[in-house]
């Protein structure tokens, strides 16, 4: 049998979980389940430049390990399709695709692009995976000229990416277009991992991608859900909201890694927005929307959440006033049951 390259690393922290109480998390981080959860097993795996974790509440630890391994294999498989840093991933292949030439891609890539396309339309361009060239440009120049930005802007926008569902093929109307699924790929992977756990009949579980996208399945016994806390670096105590998550997802996006969010609509870094979180039905959607909510105006986010009752959001906006910076926390959508 042919071998694939294994990037699996052993789950060194596996075993009974006695989690520490939540420590001070930096902003835009969704703190994982807290407190002691007897009978919960925890597994870790490095992929997509971060640490993915699975918490599985099931008595049989060996069975949980087998299921986690299957989920991590699924993650590695998805990374090989979606990563722009792997030279023969679908995304790399799209980057070197000439204009007007169709390229067949894998199911995961196609579905991520379809969802990205829908969200690009729904967010009026605030979520845009064709942002790769712009991100590359900002990596090389701290303040690119407006001429450079204009030229890059001409190769951005999902209107330049044709998706043909009958062939699962991608065709670019201009080239090169650099796709970066950084704002959706981890969420998608977490969803697929959770689906794999369900296939293994593990239904009381939580999966997260480096704390930034979380899927919670059924709640642990005698609880209302997996405890989640959203924190801001500033403000009183830092905690913005606590809630229990079950059968849904939450994702965070923010400036923890420095200036890393660029508004695809303007080609400029986001400065006044500190963090954004999105709660919704699955992690691919919340991952993408938490990225979009970093650049959308409060009015736009409000409209979005009204139109989509299954989406809720929190953003932290900083404003400079009379020489001091103030922080404003804005909530959108339904946060009933959440506490501060």
């Amino acid at each position, binding site marked *: *049998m*042919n*071998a*694939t*390259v*294994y990037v*699996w*690393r*052993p789950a060194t922290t596996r075993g009974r979980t006695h989690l520490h109480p939540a420590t001070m998390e930096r902003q835009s981080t969704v703190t994982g389940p807290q407190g002691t959860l007897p009978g919960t097993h925890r597994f870790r795996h490095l992929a997509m430049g971060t640490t993915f974790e699975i918490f599985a509440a099931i008595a049989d630890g060996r069975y949980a*390990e*087998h*299921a986690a*391994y*299957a989920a991590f294999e699924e993650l590695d498989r998805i990374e090989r399709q979606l990563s722009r840093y792997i*030279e*023969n991933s679908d995304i*790399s*292949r799209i980057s*070197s695709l000439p204009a007007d030439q*169709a390229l*067949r*891609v*894998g*199911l995961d890539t196609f*579905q991520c692009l*379809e*969802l990205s*396309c*829908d969200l690009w*339309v*729904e967010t009026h361009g605030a979520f845009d995976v064709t942002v790769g060239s712009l991100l590359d440009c900002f990596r090389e120049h701290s303040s690119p000229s407006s001429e450079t930005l204009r030229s890059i802007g001409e190769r951005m926008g*999902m209107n*330049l*990416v044709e*998706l*043909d*569902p*009958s*062939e*699962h*093929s991608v065709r670019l109307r201009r080239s090169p277009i650099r796709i970066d699924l950084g704002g959706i790929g981890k969420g998608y992977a977490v*969803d*697929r991992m*959770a*689906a794999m756990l*369900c*296939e293994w*009949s593990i*239904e*009381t579980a939580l999966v997260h991608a480096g704390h930034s996208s979380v899927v919670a*399945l*059924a709640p642990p016994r005698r609880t209302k859900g997996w405890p989640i806390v959203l924190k801001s670096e500033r403000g009183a105590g830092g905690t913005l909201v606590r809630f229990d998550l079950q*059968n*849904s997802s939450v994702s965070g996006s923010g400036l923890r890694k420095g200036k890393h969010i660029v508004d695809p609509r303007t080609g400029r870094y986001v400065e006044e927005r500190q963090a954004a979180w999105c709660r919704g*039905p*699955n*992690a*691919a959607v919340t991952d993408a929307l938490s990225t979009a909510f970093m650049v959308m105006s409060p009015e736009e986010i409000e409209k979005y959440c009204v139109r*989509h009752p*299954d989406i809720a959001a929190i953003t932290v906006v900083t404003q400079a006033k009379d020489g001091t910076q103030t922080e404003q926390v804005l909530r959108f959508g339904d946060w009933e049951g959440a506490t501060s």
Partner: protein
Amino acid sequence: MNKRKMQISRRSFLTSVATVGTGLAVSPRVVAPSATGKTDTVNVAIVGTGTQGQTLLETCLKMTGVRVIALCDLWAEFNLKRASDMLNEYRQSHGTYTDYREMLDTETALDAVIIATPDFCHAEHAVACLKAGLHVYCEAPMSNTLDAARQMVRSGRESGKLLQIGHQRRSNPKYRHCGGALLREVKLLGKVIAANAQWNRPVQPDRGWPRRAPVEEATLNKYGYESMQQFRNWQWYKKLGSGPLMELGSHQVDILDWFLEALPKSVMASGGNDYYDPKTHEWPDTVMAVYEYETKRGTVRAFYQTISSNSNMGSFETFMGDEGTMSMSESGQCRVYREESAPEWRRWVKMGLLLEPEEKQKEEKEKSESEPGLEVTDTIEPPSYRLPITFDEPNHKPHLENFFNAVRGQEQLNCPAEVAYATFVSLLKVNEALEAGRKVLFETDDFTT
């Protein structure tokens, strides 16, 4: 758990956006005419739809002119279902089978079969398909016994059909450039002295199975397995698989034979079950072997190692000559380094065989020609040359394409069974050397079938 509410299935999350969204009417998604022009379509079945079979299926789905019309796996509830679900997503109608004989009886439109079953049944499946008049692409290693591998070669020959073995590096443009243009044609490395190849993998747990979907015991027994444990971890059992040495080495020892244009004369080896429980891991988990080759240009000694409990340096193949070193890996970059005493390589750059080294690494000679005076900078690393080949296809795609083009009568196979058989023999000899505890010689007729 309310799975519907969770909405994590592939379809449902798209639907969840689509149904609540407002913008689909102006979505730039299109339903374009067929992505690419039709070529001579090859109808294919995949027998064995586990991890590797699914990888090959995904790769086929990225190709044109290939249609997977049947799938076969005895694990209907899981392997077969996953592969079938994927084909359904691509809206490709197909038959599903748990027994290959039923598939061969039913699917009359097949041209070729891809076999990705456990090693011990490769021969049975390949021979049956060849006898049914079908071309076969079979995963490596060919088998787990010499007799069965020999039977495959003979059957291929007698049937007049194609039998390609899945040593996919044989079709990889990076490897073809290194072995062909660089090593054989311009002898870039001078006289090749030694080679060093390895595939090291980290500790892996046993594979389990979803408890809702085990294969029934009677079915397992019918197909040669005693338990689900054996079925899921067949690679490690002597009667089912051929162990890491054969599984991984078949790809890499093949590169040694291919690049050195020779077959080994002798081998000595050390190895054993050093890490895993020998009750569940019958094949050695750690093996080190030293081959001796007599090539047209002299003796070459080659070291091959596979470790299943540490992933240091992953997998690579390196060739060392008196004028340079070439190091390559399927999943990474290929690099070439010049020995200090070797003639300069600018001519090969000019001929387009190598890319210029990075700016800072340009050869000293070149720098001194441009202007007088010693430039003082931060430390300059010795030059490493990259290849003028970009390979951005899925790893198995060129090899499958070669097979399908051969089926269409447009190409010769890059790894026909006879070629793979030689590698198979080279590796079986390692097991013999391990048992004998001494150097073992190859006889010329070892490689003939």
